[in-house]
């Protein structure tokens, strides 16, 4: 059938647009009277980036992915894939994309290798090139020797790896992974993460939707948090963590300079007034001392054991001021680290706790 052509070129052309994906004012209403699933989403995915799309169920992630992959027609705004409009250049857009879907959708009438070779044939690969590339990918995903099995005999992890191989066989510019690790064992998940990093190193753009915050944190360069059909935050994982208002600050572990006994720091007084009670050991009450450091809004003792006191200081604290303040109070700094909430905290902070 569709054998090699004179062009000798298989797979999509190299990317030319500056941004791999541009989403501008995207809106989608299902049916004529339904609610808007997407109410004006904007974001850009740079070439070669791993971009995360996070949000509760029903937030509009899948709709957004659907529009990018030409499966959902937008009711407003526009979406460009490598500069091509998804509503007018569907075929050219599909040539550049690959999708790892939420639910396995392998062709169950075919063997594993046939799943790959026919998929490659859809994308115009010659008979010879299909087979070579299929064998190469099967080896890469650790399925060599199982290529002639029917795919309904595959375990969940194996099916997932075959789906990844299928997505990669036509060398897509952009790979979209829609909750790819849901239900995978740790080995399969690590394999997927490694594969994603490798692909990025080779210049592939990746879009990942996930509920697994650790996954998004590890992999994504930038993350858009979507809720109720809108992007409510878009930043690097680090930048997103800074959105937690109460979590700006530092955590310090201190000991008394001449630590003989434990400085039994109990409740810290209000930082604004110097501690009134006489300190029992040389050195000040740590929380009160830290509370006096410029920029500290509040200081709480988190724990105190074996002479070490752990204190959290909230606010915009300069490390230099802190060290000076501590040494004035006769305390020695043992540990200092920036307070950072988990991405999960950020997510819940932004999208609320109610069930969807």
């Amino acid at each position: 059938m569709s054998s090699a052509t004179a062009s000798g070129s298989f797979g999509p052309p190299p990317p030319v647009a500056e941004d791999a994906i541009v989403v501008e004012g995207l809106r989608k209403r299902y049916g004529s009277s339904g609610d808007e699933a997407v109410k004006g989403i904007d974001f850009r995915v740079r070439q070669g980036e791993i971009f995360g799309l996070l949000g509760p169920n029903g937030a509009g992630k899948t709709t957004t992915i659907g529009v990018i992959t030409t499966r959902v027609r937008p009711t407003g705004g526009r979406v460009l894939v490598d500069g091509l409009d998804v509503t007018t250049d569907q075929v050219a857009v599909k040539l550049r994309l690959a999708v790892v879907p939420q639910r396995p959708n392998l062709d169950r009438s075919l063997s594993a290798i046939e799943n790959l070779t026919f998929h490659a044939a859809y994308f115009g690969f010659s008979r010879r090139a299909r087979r070579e590339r299929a064998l190469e990918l099967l080896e890469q995903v650790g399925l060599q020797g199982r290529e002639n099995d029917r795919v309904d005999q595959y375990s969940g992890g194996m099916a997932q790896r075959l789906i990844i191989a299928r997505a990669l066989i036509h060398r897509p510019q952009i790979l979209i992974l829609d909750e790819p690790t849901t239900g995978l064992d740790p080995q399969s998940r690590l394999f997927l993460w490694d594969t994603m990093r490798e692909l990025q190193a080779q210049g592939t753009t990746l879009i990942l939707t996930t509920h697994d915050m650790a996954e998004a944190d590890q992999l994504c360069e930038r993350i858009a948090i979507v809720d109720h059909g809108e992007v409510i935050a878009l930043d690097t994982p680090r930048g997103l963590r800074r959105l937690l208002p109460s979590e700006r600050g530092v955590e310090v572990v201190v000991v008394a300079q001449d630590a003989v006994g434990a400085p039994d720091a109990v409740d810290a007084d209000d930082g604004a007034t110097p501690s009134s009670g006489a300190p029992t050991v040389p050195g000040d009450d740590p929380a009160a001392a830290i509370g006096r450091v410029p920029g500290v809004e509040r200081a709480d003792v988190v724990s105190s054991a074996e002479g070490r006191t752990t204190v959290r200081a909230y606010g915009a604290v300069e490390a230099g001021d802190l060290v000076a303040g501590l040494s004035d109070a006769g305390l020695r700094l043992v540990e200092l680290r920036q307070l950072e909430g988990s991405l999960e905290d950020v997510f819940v902070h932004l999208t609320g706790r109610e069930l969807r």
Partner: protein
Amino acid sequence: MSSAPVTATPDRTPPGAAAGTRRRAFLAILSRDLWVTIRREPGGFLAQALLQPIFFLFIFGRVLPEIGQAQGSYGSLLLPGVMALTAITVSLQNVALPLVIEFSFTKEIEDRLLAPLPAWAVGVEKIVHAALRGIFSAFVLLPIAAVVLPDGLQLGGANWIALIAVVAGGAVAGGCLGLVMGTVVPANKINIAFAVILTPLLFTGATFYPWSSLDSLRWFQVVTLLNPLTYVSEGARAAIGTGEHMATWAIPLGIVGSIVVFGVIGLLGFRRRAID
């Protein structure tokens, strides 16, 4: 292996899909379906396609005349009707059933909807593949009829080109009807839809009697004109040259009309299912 000459244009206009992309994708999807038919399920396909028509030919064409309940020549009138019935129903079922399953349960069709061709072309491919199955099944009945029917085959006066055209047209019309069913009927009602649609289709399609013999039952004769199978049965009868048939001009009109009507509804339905 395939390091392509870089085709990126310097003016940063992304290249569209090359001219052959859609055609190659279409043929590859068709070859996938044919591969599955021939290599994976030939037995199942033949059983599903041929069991019913073989029984029609055997009971109505052989048993009934043998026990004196029908004329001996009934078989030659029956054969074109059964060929038409087979072409339409095989094609219809081979679009409707897989479509319902692939859209609702296995999601297998997603892979093809992401192939570089327009979504509607995937629907057209379903019709083409099912029609090929229908045409094949209809013509396989000829050697079977030669064995089963008491008088064997009487194809001396057959116009083969007309027969092929009629059967092919019928198979395409059946595929279009299958596309309508597969996309309009919700998955949990498809078994009901099959009973409700196939039974009347089967018995109002001039399969077992020539349409003109319904003159004495005028209202029924008019009702049967709504069934695409009527035109295909009559067309096959005309092409094989056995017995009387409806006006020749009406036959292509009915077949093409069915293809257009069901094809448009079916492809619109397909696009609605494929693209939200």
